[in-house]
């Protein structure tokens, strides 16, 4: 009997173009990186890093603007047929690095 090994095709990592997502603004989104990661229950999720041009102190203080971005990203992934759940992180050029931690 011929045994055919089952090959599970790894789903491709989707590309998210901020210009095509109709993201609410401000803040302005420069680019979005998407990378697979293993989520809390050991399944594959998507780590989505939203690179922002900058944030005002008001935007840092009231993060409600993240809700609109997250909804658009989740809806876009679902409409692509990608059921992996996104973990969305926001980064600005002035973010802290490990070196900026207190000593």
């Amino acid at each position, binding site marked *: 009997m011929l045994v055919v090994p089952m090959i599970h095709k790894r789903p491709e990592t989707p590309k998210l173009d901020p210009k095509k997502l109709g993201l609410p603004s401000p803040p302005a989104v420069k680019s979005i990186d998407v990378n697979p990661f293993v*989520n*809390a*229950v050991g399944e594959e*999720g998507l780590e989505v890093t939203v690179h922002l041009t900058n944030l005002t102190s008001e935007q*840092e203080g009231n*993060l*409600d603007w*993240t*809700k609109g971005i*997250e*909804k658009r990203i*989740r*809806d876009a992934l*679902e409409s692509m047929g990608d*059921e992996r*759940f*996104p*973990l*969305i*992180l*926001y*980064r600005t050029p002035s*973010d*802290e*690095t*490990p070196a*900026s*931690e*207190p000593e």
Partner: protein
Amino acid sequence: MGVPVPYHEQLLVQAAKLLAEDPKRPYQANVRRAASASYDAVFHFFADELAKQVVGASAATDSLGFAVGRALEHGSLRAAAERFSSQGAPANLPLPFRSCLTRVSPEFRALASDIVSLQDLRHRADYDRAIHLQKREANVALSRAESLVQDWPRLDTDERRTFLVAILLWKSLAGR
């Protein structure tokens, strides 16, 4: 003697205190524990809501209520929240739940989505030292956890009841 502050509220206060600890250059330990406490607050909030649903509000803080709360599992909470957060809900729910709801509101979908995000962030915060967690992430987590607890009573009763039963019985009914 006053009424004790609910455990989930204590966790939210703890998260806020950790984030206020060092405003300029936060310790990763504080940022991570704040993100973690925010999710834990949501988990214990649902454990309490579940107890109220099953044994009633008056018994929810008795041994029987705590026993019901202990039945809540992170995996079931997540699995149910993922399905409820999808555009496909309620048609994507396990069969016994499909006829319980005619629709899942955008508000409930957003709340369910927040549960999953909070759990994922908590997992990263607790176990993944390779990522440098920004204070912003923990602030988002805290703000979502606070909103969730605040908004929950205002959501549709059928959605809330179905979700609570789903998180309790998910393992038994998911395959049906």
